[in-house]
């Protein structure tokens, strides 16, 4: 009898009957693999996992145009803290959020319990979307538009921090890259 470190001693080892406990280990572990594989779809519906997203190809020009159109249509005020536009798109609409070195724009104001289609893309390099304090994280790439179906379930002020080191050629602004989402009743 060999071990797992030495070749089998029987030259016709494939035709040897398999020991009962080994068969059980094989069947159980294979069944578990199949279950976990199928259950991967389950995590899209169960548990506090990252949301499933749709992805489309885009360009920085096309995406910034969509952001500008939304901003022109739904800007409601200037943010007191930053002076940036606060955009409050109607519930159920498409909301566009652009990442760029080094900011997330515009500032969004959403309503609790309402559904939105949140589109995100980068206008230059790869950035990270990190919503705090909820700790929801995504990567945001240039050339790709990611769409998330979101329903804010808490009111408050949420910060977006860049979670992917985005550096810079002449300056280092990654640590200052912030955005904001307001959720109201």
């Amino acid at each position, binding site marked *: 009898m060999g071990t797992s470190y030495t070749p089998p*001693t*029987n*030259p*016709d*080892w*494939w*035709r040897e009957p398999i020991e009962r406990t080994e068969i059980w280990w094989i069947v159980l572990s294979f069944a578990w693999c199949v279950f976990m594989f199928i259950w991967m779809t389950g995590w899209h519906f169960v548990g506090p996992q990252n949301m499933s997203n749709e*992805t*489309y*190809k*885009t360009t920085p020009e*096309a*995406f910034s145009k969509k952001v500008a159109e939304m901003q022109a249509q739904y800007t409601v005020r200037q943010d007191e803290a930053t002076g940036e536009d606060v955009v409050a798109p109607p519930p159920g609409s498409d909301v566009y959020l652009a990442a760029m070195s080094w900011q997330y724009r515009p500032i969004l104001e959403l309503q609790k319990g309402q559904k939105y289609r949140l*589109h995100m893309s980068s206008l230059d390099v790869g950035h990270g979307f990190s919503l705090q304090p909820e700790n929801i994280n995504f990567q945001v790439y240039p050339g*790709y*538009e990611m769409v998330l179906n979101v329903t804010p379930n808490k009111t408050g002020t949420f910060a977006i921090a860049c979670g992917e080191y985005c550096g810079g050629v002449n300056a280092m602004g990654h640590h200052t890259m912030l955005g904001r989402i307001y959720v109201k009743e």
Partner: protein
Amino acid sequence: MSESTSGNVKPHFMQTALDNQWLMLALAVLVPTVFYTLWGLWDVMNIPTAP
């Protein structure tokens, strides 16, 4: 080799395959390449353009 019942038994083809380390190496490279790299590239190339 002491448990051999007959020296003329042709090994099962699965045994021949599993004993072939070069085949195992080829499969170890090929399977992840097809199911990870090529599938991923195919997926990225088929992303639709944003409406």
